[in-house]
């Protein structure tokens, strides 16, 4: 086991189990290795801590928890970077932003494709996807009096409509 420092204190990790980004993350191109940290509470959020920079940790989630039809397939060159062969599986994850008033958004434009077989990941950009880099979590309509509330504010936002 190795030990690194983080904003949250000391973290012990298995160097064999790190998530490797051969190209780094966008804006953090030099940071290649991340430790995957399970969330202590239940729920779809988890986080990754940079091995190389104690200050950098990102919250990630599987976007299909919120947008069930969201799907991103790796392109040929991305499969190469991920070391994927044949029918190897992959998962699309997205970066979660928690802003200062605890408003949560998902970056659906720049998903992280993860290949479990090789433990490699790559952040890709979806050009002209119509998604937003600050997609609010879908609003669950609970009030029975507003069955058509969906057609209002969210209608122009493709991501909300898809969710």
């Amino acid at each position, binding site marked *: 086991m190795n030990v690194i420092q983080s904003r*949250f204190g000391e973290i012990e990790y298995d160097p064999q189990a790190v998530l490797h980004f051969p190209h780094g*993350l*966008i*804006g*953090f191109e030099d940071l290649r290795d991340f430790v995957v940290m399970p*969330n*202590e*509470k*239940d*729920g*779809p*959020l988890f*986080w990754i801590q940079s091995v190389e920079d104690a*200050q*950098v*940790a*990102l*919250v990630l989630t599987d976007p299909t*928890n*919120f947008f*069930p039809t969201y799907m991103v397939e790796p*392109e*040929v*060159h991305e499969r*190469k970077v991920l070391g994927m062969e044949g029918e190897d599986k992959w998962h699309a994850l997205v*970066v*979660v*932003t*928690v*802003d*200062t008033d*605890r408003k*949560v958004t998902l*970056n659906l*434009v*720049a998903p992280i494709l993860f290949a479990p077989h090789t433990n490699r990941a790559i*952040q890709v*950009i979806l*050009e002209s996807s119509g998604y937003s*880099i*600050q997609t609010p*979590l*879908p609003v*669950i309509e609970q009030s029975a009096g507003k069955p058509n509330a969906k057609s209002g504010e969210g209608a122009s936002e493709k991501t909300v409509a898809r*969710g």
Partner: protein
Amino acid sequence: MLVLTRKVGEGIIIGDDIKLTVVEIKGGTVRIGIDAPQDKKIYREELYAQIKAQNRSSTGWTLDDLSLLSGTISRKSEENK
């Protein structure tokens, strides 16, 4: 910076495998066609800058945020299923 003047339909070759073509000029907007190998990443500059900034601003959360949100979000995603 190298600056070249091109007309509609004219192009620019960069290296062996990248070709830019001016497709259309209309008002203050230029449409540019790009032929490049698939592994060359091509993005609109401002989109790339936005994602960079978004990634950077996604590193400011705290463990308190995470545990607080986990409760509300897991409920939401359950309802969504």
